[in-house]
């Protein structure tokens, strides 16, 4: 059972465009939602994260939007660059249950020059 569902599976964007990746979760006890970025041949690395008490968090060109009532959150990459081409994973955790992250299926982003 996939507790965090992610879409799309792949995404192609032109340089300068906006990349949007969506995730939905089922467990309302989740209280921390990180996004990970993975380049080929590397492990995933923490990109940005949000808690459900805020609706948006921005770090540079990366923004997380969070909709608690809909149990959805999304990653927006503004002014997408070829160097952003990577696989992106959303994740969720209930911190009181221990440090076990549940991951979405992943999105392979390609930014064309």
């Amino acid at each position, binding site marked *: 059972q996939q507790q965090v569902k992610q879409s799309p599976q792949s995404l192609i964007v032109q340089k300068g465009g906006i990349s949007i990746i969506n995730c939905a979760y089922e467990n309302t006890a989740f209280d*921390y939602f990180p996004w990970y970025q993975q380049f080929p041949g590397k*492990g995933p690395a923490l990109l940005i994260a949000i808690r459900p008490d805020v609706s948006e968090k921005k770090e540079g060109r990366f923004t997380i939007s969070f909709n608690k009532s809909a149990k959805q959150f999304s990653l927006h990459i503004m002014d997408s660059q070829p160097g952003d081409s990577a696989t992106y994973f959303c994740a969720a955790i209930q911190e009181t249950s221990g440090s076990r*992250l549940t991951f979405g*299926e992943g999105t392979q982003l390609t930014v064309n020059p």
Partner: protein
Amino acid sequence: DVKVTQSSRYLVKRTGEKVFLECVQDMDHENMFWYRQDPGLGLRLIYFSYDVKMKEKGDIPEGYSVSREKKERFSLILESASTNQTSMYLCASSLIMRLSIIGYTFGSGTRLTVV
């Protein structure tokens, strides 16, 4: 920076072999994890450990076991490798504290092919 090192980048093993995947972290983290990564399925947790000699099953433990004899080292064991265990295996570690302060740190992965 925390470093998580997986001993092999690529492995090719035969069906039925016993396979050991090794992971070492250098920052005294309590938690260690083994995930497998498959296209379209994301990262799925196989086993994790909160302390030396402690282990907990994750979501897909069948066909795997683990060993944690020292705090810095967490080994994944495929008792009898099968072709459906061909995958990318990722090790991770984290501190026991609020995750917002320090997240998981992943190794670079071991791509295992079972023939």
